């Protein structure tokens, strides 16, 4: 495994080396909360960041397996296309924003707007999430083992949401749906993939009521 010490070099050099690697493993030391760590990777390299990461860690990831042994700042794994990103600690706001694919696992809590505008990726949070989670989420899945803040799934499109804990409130057009056997099966598989132990049967399922898909004056009060 290659070791890159950010007390000895800078983010540009780090990303240049990671983006140029076809495979293999990298350990990043002394990340110091720097921004855009391991951003824009395109190959199945394995990257372990030992410490806290700043904004946009693993941004737009493609294929790489990235682990943060610490907390992550705003927009971790934003617009991820594929691969896996795991945060051992907590994540700030907009975690997994607009992710098209791949799996983001946050073992701790996530802040506001987790999985905002999700476009097909999977986001699994071991702890709780803040307000406006899955706002305008279009496709993909958000799983929360803990509790959820206000306005979950506001203006939701076709993304699926699973929550084990409490929900402060649902956003416009987000409704609780029947947790079917198919839902339980796919959730159990996702939890296993995320490496988090939980009974899929203990979750509730939320999705779009699809009442706001078209302009309708009778829905004006919902906005």
């Amino acid at each position, binding site marked *: 495994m290659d070791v890159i010490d950010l007390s000895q070099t800078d983010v*540009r050099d780090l990303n240049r080396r990671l983006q140029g690697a076809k495979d293999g493993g990298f350990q990043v030391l002394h990340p110091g909360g720097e921004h855009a760590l391991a951003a824009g990777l395109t190959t199945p390299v394995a990257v372990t960041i030992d410490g806290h990461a700043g904004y946009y860690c693993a941004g737009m990831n493609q294929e790489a397996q990235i682990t943060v042994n610490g907390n992550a700042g705003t927009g971790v794994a934003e617009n991820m296309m594929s691969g896996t990103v795991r945060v051992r600690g907590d994540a700030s706001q907009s975690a997994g924003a607009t992710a098209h694919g791949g799996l983001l696992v946050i073992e701790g809590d996530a802040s506001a707007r987790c999985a905002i505008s999700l476009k097909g990726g999977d986001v699994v949070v071991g702890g709780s999430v803040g307000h406006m989670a899955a706002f305008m989420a279009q496709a993909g899945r958000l799983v929360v083992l803990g509790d959820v803040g206000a306005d979950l799934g506001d203006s939701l499109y076709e993304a699926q949401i699973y929550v084990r804990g409490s929900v402060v409130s649902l956003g416009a057009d987000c409704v609780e749906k029947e947790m079917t056997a198919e839902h339980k099966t796919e959730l159990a598989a996702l939890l296993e993939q995320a490496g988090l132990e939980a009974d899929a049967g203990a979750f509730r399922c939320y999705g779009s009521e699809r009442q706001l898909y078209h302009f309708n004056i009778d829905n004006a009060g919902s906005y």
Partner: protein
Amino acid sequence: MNNDAKESATYPPRVIDEIQRAASEGIYAIRGAGAKRHVPSFDDLVFLGASMSRYPLEGYRERCDTNVVIGARHASKPIELDIPITIAGMSFGALGANAKQALGLAATAMGTSTTTGDGGMTPEEREASKTLVYQYLPSRYGMTPDQLRHADAIEVVVGQGAKPGGGGMLLGQKITDRVAEMRTLPTGIDQRSACRHPDWTGPDDLEIKIRELREITNWEKPIYVKVGATRTRYDVMLAVKAGADAVVVDGMQGGTAATQDIFIEDVGIPTLPAVRLAVEALQELDMHRKVQLIVSGGIRTGGDVAKALALGADAVSIGMAALMALNCNAPLYEEDYAALGTRPGACDRCHTGRCPVGVATQDPVLEARLDPEEGARRVRNYLSTLTMECQTLARACGKSHVHNLEPEDMVALTVEAAAMAKVPLAGTDWIPGSG
């Protein structure tokens, strides 16, 4: 005077119509295009051609260069354009594929750039466009890192002149299977895009976002920041502080494919004062000509181009006018205009998807009315005309490069324009607000 037949200034027929439409439908009016109200504009400025104290250049013999380099502040691969007139961001979805292809072909033929829009980049557009600017929008519809890398520059869209503070809108008629797939949306829904970016708010965050975009694209691409003209001085300063290579300022005359009429007419400031405010902001930061200023919103003629450059812009961008070159609002298929409740010369029905001339539509029958090659030829002719007109004015002012035009070359015809552009009222040395 008989007041029985006198129209009210406060409630003229168009206002009464709108009140009664609102009462009937219970929802704001939605339309395309830009502000239709009269605003102070470049029409209110004129050039002072050379005479005894200034020497003109020979109109047909002496060079007057038009090239511009954008993005050299931080990007390792700045873009070099032959003319300072670019094609503004317009989405595939709002426009049909033929229109996008025509714009790309024309821009390429003229050595300038064209720009994507909401929904990402189509292969046809990339292939047709030698220099393609990629819009990075709040919705991030269709946005992928591969597309960022395939672009020649990146434009972070904070807002646009037609609707500063508002998000995109694309009604269900235009959300075809292909558009829906590109945007990861259900076919046929009324798409209302986010107005704020999902993972940053404010200039401090934007600085970090721009750094991420540079990391992902190897610090090669120029990064623009586009704002609708409102608090222009502050917006430009903050964009520069955030690390932009270029700032795009879009005045309230700038068009859109769909938004609320109230947004188009009642939000933002005209392009004329916005240019001057933006230039002053750059000068105050000692960044004028280091961070390029691109101005859009109601640019129609070579005169508009020259006046924007004379006020200090590095380039202009055209949207509506380029569509008009493609026959938008042309007196063709008049029965189809009538079916939309409008007529050639007044059409703003872009949002319906029923564009009579095949520009702003996804309908294959309508779209077939626009041949991309013929359309490209028309836009190329138009861009060529704008360039020659701009050169004509620059030579008349004795300038060997269009960027050598300056405010001193102009006077204003109205007090309002003099105050907004900070050039003297014609026949005086008076600039309102300046001493």
